């Protein structure tokens, strides 16, 4: 017979340790424990069985994984923290004795700790570090915008944050890894694809933040400490992977903080600034061509081996020669750093692939922008440059502008204030156009974005809310992306919006429909009647106990079989078979176990709530569009009475 096992010596009871016990075991103060937890990434756990862990009590109690705390016991930083504490006591004593010289000397020799090993320990691989970058970048972006005189945080730290975040953004910019941008009421969200994982960070709007009273900046500072180190190492890795020197040199720290201020150098010492410094590129062109030839010859060889595209390759050669001149402008010189070392060739190819891989990177490559002083320069500069555009701004916004305001090559001027004097043939557009273009992945029409016009809604590229409602604007965008010819009047047709809404609901439900119903009949009365019928049918289906998905599927199936049925057939009645099915379901539900029944009701409740929410949004939209249409009608009537000639223009 084995030994009798005592309670609380094995298993869950022994795997967890409460916070107080942990603090006592480590012999540190709570504040130091907090600091350690933040740095080491130790967090409390919710044990699966609270009673077993808590000695039979269910009282709320913070517990940590015991091994985490045991690892902490050997943590070098813990030792350093103790040293720092002892040292501080020495300083305090010297100050108490008024031994200023001693105190000063002690102050100078204060022990410090580094977080390198923590970064390596928490993120054993680079990919893992990238995964955790979201919070780090958002935090740095926030601290970069804090006022330097705010006293809560040292100005040097704020400068460091600003530098790190702009270094990262600069990397994203020159490699064109930016994917999505979203201007929200909280700030501007950016999403970039780093090493295959999407990093999303938020940058607050460029206004001074007032520091709230109920925020403990010591905690924030500890996090900031960690995040600074993390982002620094990540930046180093990102730059060095591109064969660039890190940290990049800052041209003139005072005048141009931000993206334009960096001078990026390759390891070999070649200067290449951002993507707009053409002079540096000219120097390297000869060497580059040599390298490209090498690359091409290798590619040709590969092509011969593959035997597939051998003939095509030959033809393409000529075309590519012609295109070379264009490509010179597109590919940042930094990446194509010349070298005659043959080992460099693969890495060069990789780098070129990174840049030219995404076609959307060239989105703005034929555009030249000029930013007025009232638009957020840093954000727009970042976005435009990341998508290959050229951008200039007035002196007052900072140095480093690529074009002057009276430059004839400027295609778009971004303004956000009425009454700007217009010059040349350039388009005067509001900043939202740039962001919408990026999210749409193509150059949109500038109609609706001009100054003084009502802007179309700015939608989140990250998708809608939980309720599964898709607004009409998103549907029309989806239809366009699917290749369906969008009418000239984009979305300002009432009927189109409603119909598209219905289709959108189906898309979210997963039913694959073929958007053929984006057509405009014109008469609202008929449409509203149809709506009512649809609503009635929905009600009937609900009475029959059909779930919404079933109903929608059924509806989709009906729509497919009879594309445009007669008006009468739309009025459906619950057939006997349906009623029987509903009854059978109700009966079968009596046989459900309590657990299953509760789960079922929970799921149904959630689904219904979502549906209600979506329906509410849809109703509100319809009501709004009806109101707008009525207003339009009234207005057009007045116009027709006064000026019959204007009718054609109004009736779009």
């Amino acid at each position, binding site marked *: 017979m084995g030994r009798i096992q005592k309670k609380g010596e094995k298993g869950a009871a022994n795997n967890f340790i409460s916070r107080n016990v942990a603090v006592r075991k480590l012999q540190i103060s709570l504040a130091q424990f907090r600091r350690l937890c933040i740095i080491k990434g130790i967090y409390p756990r919710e044990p699966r069985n609270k009673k077993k862990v808590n000695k039979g009590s269910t009282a709320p109690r913070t517990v940590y994984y015991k091994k985490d705390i045991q690892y902490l016991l050997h943590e070098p930083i813990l030792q350093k923290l103790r040293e720092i504490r002892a040292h501080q006591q020495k300083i305090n004593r010297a100050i108490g004795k008024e031994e200023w010289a001693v105190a000063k000397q002690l102050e*100078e020799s204060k022990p410090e700790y580094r977080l390198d090993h923590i970064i390596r320990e928490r993120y054993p691989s680079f990919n893992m570090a990238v995964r955790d970058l979201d919070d780090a970048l958002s935090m740095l972006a926030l601290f970069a915008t804090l006022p330097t005189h705010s006293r809560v945080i040292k100005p040097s730290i704020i400068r460091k944050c600003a530098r790190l975040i702009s270094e990262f953004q600069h990397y994203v910019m020159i490699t064109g890894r930016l994917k999505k941008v979203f201007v929200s009421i*909280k700030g501007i969200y950016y999403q970039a694809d780093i090493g295959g994982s999407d990093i999303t960070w938020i940058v607050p709007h460029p206004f001074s933040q007032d520091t709230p009273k109920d925020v403990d900046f010591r905690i924030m500072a500890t996090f900031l400490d960690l995040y600074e180190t993390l982002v620094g190492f990540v930046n180093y890795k990102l730059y060095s992977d591109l064969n660039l020197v890190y940290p990049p040199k800052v041209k003139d720290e005072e005048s141009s903080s931000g993206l334009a201020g960096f001078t990026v150098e390759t390891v070999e010492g070649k200067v290449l600034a951002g993507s707009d410094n053409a002079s540096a590129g000219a120097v390297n062109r000869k060497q580059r061509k040599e390298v490209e030839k090498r690359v091409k010859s290798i590619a040709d060889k590969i092509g011969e081996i593959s035997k597939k595209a051998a003939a095509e390759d030959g033809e393409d050669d000529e075309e590519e020669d012609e295109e070379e001149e264009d490509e010179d402008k597109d590919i940042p010189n930094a990446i194509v750093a010349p070298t005659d070392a043959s080992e460099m060739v693969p890495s060069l190819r990789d780098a070129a692939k990174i840049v030219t891989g995404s076609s959307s990177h060239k989105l703005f490559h034929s555009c030249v922008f000029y930013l007025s002083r009232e638009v957020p320069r840093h954000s727009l500069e970042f976005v435009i440059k990341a998508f290959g555009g050229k951008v200039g701004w007035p002196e007052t916004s900072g140095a480093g502008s690529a074009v002057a305001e009276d430059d004839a090559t400027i295609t778009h001027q971004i303004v956000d204030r009425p009454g700007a004097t217009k010059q040349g043939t350039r388009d005067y557009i509001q900043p939202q156009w740039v962001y919408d273009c990026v999210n749409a992945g193509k150059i949109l029409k500038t109609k609706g974005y001009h100054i003084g016009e009502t802007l179309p809604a700015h939608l989140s590229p990250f998708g809608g809310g939980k309720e599964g409602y898709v607004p009409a604007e998103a549907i029309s965008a989806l239809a366009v992306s699917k290749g369906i010819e969008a009418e000239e009047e984009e979305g300002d047709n009432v009927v189109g919006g409603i119909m598209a809404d219905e289709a959108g609901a189906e898309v979210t439900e997963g039913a694959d429909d073929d958007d053929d119903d984006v057509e405009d009949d014109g008469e609202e009365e008929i449409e509203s009647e149809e709506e009512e019928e649809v609503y009635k049918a929905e009600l009937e289906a609900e009475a029959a106990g059909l779930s919404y998905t079933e109903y929608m599927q059924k509806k989709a199936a009906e729509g497919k079989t009879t594309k445009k049925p007669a008006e009468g057939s739309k009025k459906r009645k619950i057939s006997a078979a349906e009623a029987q099915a509903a009854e059978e379901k109700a009966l079968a539900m009596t046989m459900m176990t309590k657990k299953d029944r509760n789960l079922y009701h929970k799921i149904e409740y959630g689904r219904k709530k979502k549906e209600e929410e979506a329906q509410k949004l849809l109703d509100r939209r319809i009501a709004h569009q009806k109101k707008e249409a009525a207003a339009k009608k009234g207005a057009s009537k007045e116009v027709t009475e006064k000026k019959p000639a204007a009718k054609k223009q109004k009736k779009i």
Partner: protein
Amino acid sequence: MTKDALDEFLSSMDDPDSWRSVLNKLEGENIVLSDNDLEMIQRIQKKMIPDKDYDPYEPTVEWFTSKTEVMPLSAAPEPKGRFIPSKSEQGQIMKIVRAIRKGWVKTKEQKQLEKEQALPKFYDIWANSDPNAQDHPMHIPAPRMALPDHRESYNPPVEYIPTDEEIAEWNALDPELRPHNYIPKKHPNMRSVGAYERFINERFDRCLDLYLCPRMIKKRINIDPESLIPQLPSRKELEPYPTSLSIVYEGHTARIRCFSIDPTGKWLASGSDDCTVRCWELLTGRVVKSWKFDEPVMDVRWNPNPAFSILALAMENDVILINPSIGTKDVTVATDEAFANIWNKESPTKMEWNKPGPADFARGYRVVLHFNKSVTNVVWHRKGDYFSTVCPEGGGSAVSIHQISKKQTQHPFKKSYGLVQKVQFHPKKPWLFVATQRYIRVYNLIQQDLVHKLQPGVKWISSMDVHPQGDNVIMGSYDKRLCWFDLDLSAKPYKTLRYHKSAIRNATYHKTLPLFASCSDDGTVNIFHGMVYDSLDQNPLIVPLKSFKAHEVVESLGVLHVEFHPVQPWVVSCGSSGDGKFTLKLFS
């Protein structure tokens, strides 16, 4: 000689200089202070130099100057020490130099350099890392922040803009309960977007979440809710069962508490709160006979023996056996003969079997049994000779068993185990099922011992029925549950079903078909297929077949009783029909 105070006063009044005179204690005489003295005293009081002629700021006379004089005051030569470096100082310096050389002490520059050279601030920390490194198995990564949706946009679609009521509702909510931590707002252009005032708070909350929030892995189930509903065999294969309403029996003016279908299936007797018992022809709904009493009728039961026609009624403290004389003449005569014989016999028990008077006899009364407590339940043994009654308040004699042929009454239990709700005879064995509030006890009446004690785990048992084969029992309870017991399997229910919305009033088996039914205060009658198999390794099959919304709920009472036809797949229920009438309904 010393003066006293009076003398002193008098002399001071005489002497004009007394105010400026001071007693010199040493000499013992008064000294008159001069004007100079007084001035000096005043200067001292003002903290000035006493001598008024002293000038503290008179120009200095430089006796020894920094200028080298042609004729110096002292002719001593410069000491040698002034030209030789200090030995002790050199010792001290050498000590430091040696310490620096040996690295014991570091200069500021050295320290700075060392710090910089120790490790570059950033370097390739993942130089030789395993790119496929995995997290620690116990590590739970923090979930990422939710990505923003359309409503967070600075210029969202119009439908996302909340109304004033919604904003008020949002403000009234506890911050933790709000679906979003911001109010969507439409800005006409980007320049009108201001700073978000809670930005720092939100970042701070995220920080707190990261290091304070307990983490656990929650598996998110992604199942089709329809898959949770059990797949049942087709109802078509399980026919026959009642499917529709056929006959409504109208006539009672108050709540119908009980009814019973006679073993031939021709007659239906119902007892009601209007103190009547009506005998209906089942197929036509015609009232054949009716009796009027003084008290509401609690229970009506036909004798299960088709050779006799006896109706047992329970009302208040009486149990009356009636010969309704509605069947064939043979049966009526046989019944009367059976009753006529018993009066010759001596009753061995204390219970009085009363012979009704001639008037009552003419109405059909044959035997009247009088109890001390009110009787709620009458149950016949399958052979029709015995019947059992229940007086829940009767204590030890709550259950009594009566034998007609011997005109005797027995109280099988001396002790009460709780409030007896129902009793039931086993269809084959000499067993008696006694349902108290919580348990069902099964007694062997011959061996006089407890066979089973069924534990349904419900709060209050309302009804009970035994399967015609005797191995299964169904039980309804006031807390909405219906339990199916398999006596061979366990004392715990084989299946507990909870589908009624209020208390179950009755649960009953069909005598010949695999059906059972339950009725409830929610006004419904539910019919189930309940197949019992002969082989022991097969569990009973329970399939819901039909749910009738049979009656209206009046004063929170719905269907009070339900019973199957003895042969046909028909079911009868009693309750209100909503318009103040009380009816019985037959579903076929």
